[in-house]
């Protein structure tokens, strides 16, 4: 009887507080409660954006309607779609983020390989300068770049974004170079030596041995690069002004664009610009990234864990 009660107690104890083998009920419910709370705080702006974007003008004015709109209203999206000039700006955004990202990833791989696999004078200096390019604020190099582009007639053309990426100076390129540096450092030297004995050239070793081994680094660099280029608006808006218009650029001049399409004096009060339309525009802006994220999110997280981004 005594032992039975003892056993029973132990069972309860391990259920609540956990044992070596599994965590207890108390612990896991606390964990879930915290995760759900933090998750809600994280998603709150997104939920707010999405719900607001579906509200009709009368729902917006109705204080009773907070989280559930009375009817599914898509008028905001129709207008935001037209104001953003969606098909054109979407294509421009894709062009201005995917092309530089491809170039930037490849160049970062080449540079990272050179730094990781060869000993030469000035290597540490170059590493130091690469870190410096990450720290220097964009406005410290912006004006001469802009003036030079203007002189060459490149201002407003996609080349203004592509050229720096091609020469390893793309947006946040330092991070990508360091990712590749890390990942090539861990490549065993034996493979390289074996290939060299077989008469392979350095370029060939890089392309056939190093590149396939660094596949996670390529994926992670490309994805992050696309995301950061897409979201970067400070440099893009200055270099592309008057030429290509990307989605975030059009979003930042949403009010003017709306008023030129729907002049405030001529439309009825329900077609005036309101926060629901703005939120629809914002949502349309991030929708392509959300789609990409949900398609690729396994890669997104797992390859970061595998590339060892930390750099010991």
């Amino acid at each position: 009887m005594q032992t039975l009660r003892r056993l029973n107690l132990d069972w309860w104890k391990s259920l609540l507080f956990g044992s070596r083998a599994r965590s207890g009920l108390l612990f896991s419910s606390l964990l879930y409660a915290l995760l759900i709370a933090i998750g809600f705080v994280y998603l709150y702006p997104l939920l707010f954006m999405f719900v607001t974007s579906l509200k009709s003008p009368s729902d917006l004015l109705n204080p009773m309607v907070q989280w559930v709109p009375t009817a599914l209203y898509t008028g905001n999206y129709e207008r935001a779609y037209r104001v953003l000039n969606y098909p054109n700006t979407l294509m421009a955004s894709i062009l201005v983020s995917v092309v530089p990202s491809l170039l930037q990833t490849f160049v970062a791989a080449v540079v990272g390989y050179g730094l990781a696999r060869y000993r030469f004078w000035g290597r540490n200096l170059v590493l130091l300068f690469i870190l410096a390019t990450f720290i220097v604020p964009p406005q410290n190099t912006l004006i001469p770049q802009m003036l030079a582009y203007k002189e060459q007639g490149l201002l407003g053309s996609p080349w203004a974004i592509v050229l720096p990426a091609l020469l390893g100076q793309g947006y946040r390129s330092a991070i990508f170079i360091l990712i590749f540096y890390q990942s090539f450092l861990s490549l065993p030297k034996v493979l390289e030596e074996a290939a060299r004995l077989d008469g392979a050239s350095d370029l060939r070793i890089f392309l056939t041995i190093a590149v396939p081994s660094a596949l996670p680094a390529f994926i992670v660099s490309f994805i992050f690069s696309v995301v950061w280029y897409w979201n970067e608006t400070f440099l893009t808006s200055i270099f592309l002004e008057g030429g290509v218009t990307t989605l975030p650029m059009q979003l930042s001049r949403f009010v003017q664009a709306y008023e030129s399409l729907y002049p405030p004096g001529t439309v009825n009060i329900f077609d005036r610009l309101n926060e629901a339309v703005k939120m629809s525009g914002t949502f349309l802006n991030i929708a392509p990234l959300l789609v990409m994220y949900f398609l690729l999110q396994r890669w997104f997280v797992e390859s970061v864990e595998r590339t060892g981004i930390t750099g010991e």
Partner: protein
Amino acid sequence: MKNDRNLITPRLREALHGYAFIALWVVGFSLFTLFPLLETFRYSLHRVTVTVEGIRLDFVQWANYTRALFTDPNFIELVIGYAVETLVSVPIVLIFSMIIALFLNQDFKLKGLFRTIFFLPVVITSGPVIRELTAQGATSAPGIANLPAVAEFIAQLPRTLRNPVEYLLTSFILILWFSGVQILIYLSSLQKVDKSIYEAAAIDGASAWEAYWKITLPSLSTANLVNAVYTVVTLSHFSENKVIQYIYNQTYAVQGGIGYASAMAFLYFAVMVILLGGVYLFLAQQANKERN
């Protein structure tokens, strides 16, 4: 042919190949970073006027710098605000992302779902999106900042404390949204810690609490440094940053001009480097203490 082989030693050969791999970067660095940086510094010492033929430079020594530091009432205030906000945000981002990473390092159901949620901000955080959300009040801690009791509490605080606390409340979600990459970095460090160390500690009778302070935290010291630097740089480069916007507006202002904006850019850069250095030294010292 034979002579050539003797001239080029294996070491020189290796160095030349290395240079070939990084040549592209060196060219790019000179063209797109080093030269513009020096040129901006030259502008900062001149009064720059844009004319039809090009730009005209009038040497004014350090006048642009003294103007930003001693005459301009806005610049210093904005920079102080930026420094305070950064120093408030960095510990919050670090602690928060560490907690999330520790959670996500556990095994539990729906882990994938939560992971997806916590990395979402990495994907969507951009200047215009944040601006729209902030304008709608969607980035403040839900409801807290509007409570009368909280408003009363803030009003009671001394002036020096009021701004950081207010910033904290109104931009709480925003600060958390800057934690995505940091969570990833902590997570990848956590996964490198050898599991057997925890088992050995548990056999020796260490509780989970002790294991955290004695094993987990010291092994995260490098990640701490990387994350702190990353956070400071991201916050300082963010396009909605008030100092950056002020500098940008001054570039085109009649009163300001390119020379003045360049001087402010360098002063801002200096403050940023000081902040980075301070945070770095502090964390490096902590890491050393833990090791001893």
